[in-house]
């Protein structure tokens, strides 16, 4: 019983980080109907920008974090301007393919600048390790879960409570209509990419803090695929639920199936779950119920 609660708890904490990854995919998918396969590379770039500011330049954490995130957002915006903007109004498939290319290009860039060796990455956050009876939750995952939840909440407030968020939701629905009513769709797309890469950087910093940072840390970005497909490609709430489901699924597999000798099953389990969900609900658990006029 303790094992189960332990697995559920740690799964949820990691799941919240995955939820942020999912959120980044969903916002971009809604705005431009493209799947951002370069998410892992954005994650690495965001983490490295923070690494440079915090570890190399020794800025205090509370200055390095906002600056690093801002730098990540600007990187996202520049990438969007150069690669996605020229494709506005074209097929979303074209944009998706562009992000595939971007993934290779950006990974190579990171390797040229930072090399492909591993950097140690340790944030000296206050220790908030939680120990209740036999249960033990480490400090780092708790920080990661809390910061991810905070990021998620801020993005939700931005999207659903501000006029910029309204403009983003309007543009997400139809770029032509938005432009006809005076919403600059090109600029909105820029904002969405900047926001998305900022959130990815938050997730990246948390994930690097679990272990170390290298140009291959971006593999974690692939976790976003089961997250958004389980939750529904266009559902923000679905990203949260999907993230937690994937996190729990992973830690349950780690706690109960791996000891049976199936080492590495942890990484496969979310995809098996994904298959099952897609068999039953092809749009994902929370995919938009399309408004059909009859």
């Amino acid at each position, binding site marked *: 019983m303790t094992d189960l609660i332990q697995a559920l708890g740690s799964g949820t904490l990691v799941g919240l980080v995955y939820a942020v990854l999912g959120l980044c995919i969903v916002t971009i998918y809604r705005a431009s109907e493209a799947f951002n396969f370069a998410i892992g590379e954005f994650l690495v770039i965001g983490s490295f920008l923070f690494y440079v500011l915090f570890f190399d330049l020794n800025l205090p954490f509370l200055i390095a974090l906002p600056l690093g995130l801002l730098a990540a957002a600007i990187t996202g915006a520049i990438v969007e301007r150069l690669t996605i903007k020229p494709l506005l109004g074209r097929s979303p498939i074209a944009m998706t393919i562009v992000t595939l290319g971007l993934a290779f290009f950006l990974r190579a860039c990171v390797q040229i600048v930072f090399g492909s060796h591993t950097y140690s990455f340790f944030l000296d956050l206050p220790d908030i390790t939680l120990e209740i009876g036999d249960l033990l939750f480490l400090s780092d995952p708790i920080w990661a879960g809390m910061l991810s939840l905070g990021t998620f909440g801020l993005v939700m407030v931005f999207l659903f409570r501000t006029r910029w968020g*309204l*403009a983003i*939701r309007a543009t997400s629905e139809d770029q*032509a209509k938005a*432009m*006809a*009513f005076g919403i600059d769709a090109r600029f909105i797309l820029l904002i969405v990419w900047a926001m998305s890469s900022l959130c990815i950087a938050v997730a990246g910093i948390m994930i690097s803090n679990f272990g170390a940072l290298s140009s291959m840390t971006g593999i974690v970005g692939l976790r976003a695929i089961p997250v958004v497909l389980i939750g529904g490609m266009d559902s923000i709430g679905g990203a949260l639920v999907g993230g937690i489901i994937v996190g729990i699924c992973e830690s349950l597999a780690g706690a109960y199936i791996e000891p049976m000798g199936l080492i590495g099953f942890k990484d496969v389990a979310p995809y098996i779950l994904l298959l099952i969900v897609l068999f039953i609900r092809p749009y994902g658990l929370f995919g*938009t119920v399309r*408004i059909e006029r009859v």
Partner: protein
Amino acid sequence: MLAIENLRVVYHDVISVLNGISMDVQAGEVLVIIGANGAGKTTLLRSVSGMIDFYDGDIIDGDIKMEGASIKGLDATDIMKRYGVTYVMEDRPVFWYLTVEENLEAASFSRWDKRVKADMEDVFGYFPMLRSLRHKRAGYASGGEQQMLAIGMALMTKPKIMLLDEPSLGLAPLITEELFSIIQRLNQSGITMMLVEQNAHAALNIGTRGYVVEMGRIVLEGDSQELLVNEDVREFYLGSGEKERKSYKDAKRYKRRKRWL
């Protein structure tokens, strides 16, 4: 107010849609443009509003002037903000997954200020049925309500001239009548209208002047009362006429073109 001079537009670099159209819209009028499908009416409105880029079309010749200043090739948002030209696209351009109120707020994005709430009340004044729907998703509203919302959204942008693309598309005759009477009221309140319509009779009835467009050219122009009694317009667009019924052969387009030119 708005002058279009010898406008030529092609799509995808090869498909020529407008072949030299010139017209002028005077302040305060309701200009009606009628024509068959594919005549280039929508393309004309897209060109004026700057949306033509989005559809991979190019203005290869001619000019569009709003109050003397050329607006050719400007960004759609710029044209709307700086020159007060608002384009209401065909087929009820509302955001389905936003509520009616959010739709109106989204449309006022470009000029966000303290007066948005007051303007929203004005819109509800013109379209009372929208008030009761304000928290409902626009996608669930009826066709007539959506079209009225679309015009309401256009009002939120404070237009000087409104380009309406087939507002009566798919609406019942009674709703169309109501809609057109509201368009007339808006016009009396000082908004110039450029109205593209298939429902020629209803449109010409509220219009001041009209143009008939065919194959990307203007083939006839005149006061709308004149057009309403014009023999050819009656035959081709109003479905009536003095002559005996024509066979399909005579209604072929090239025959008709010979008649116009």
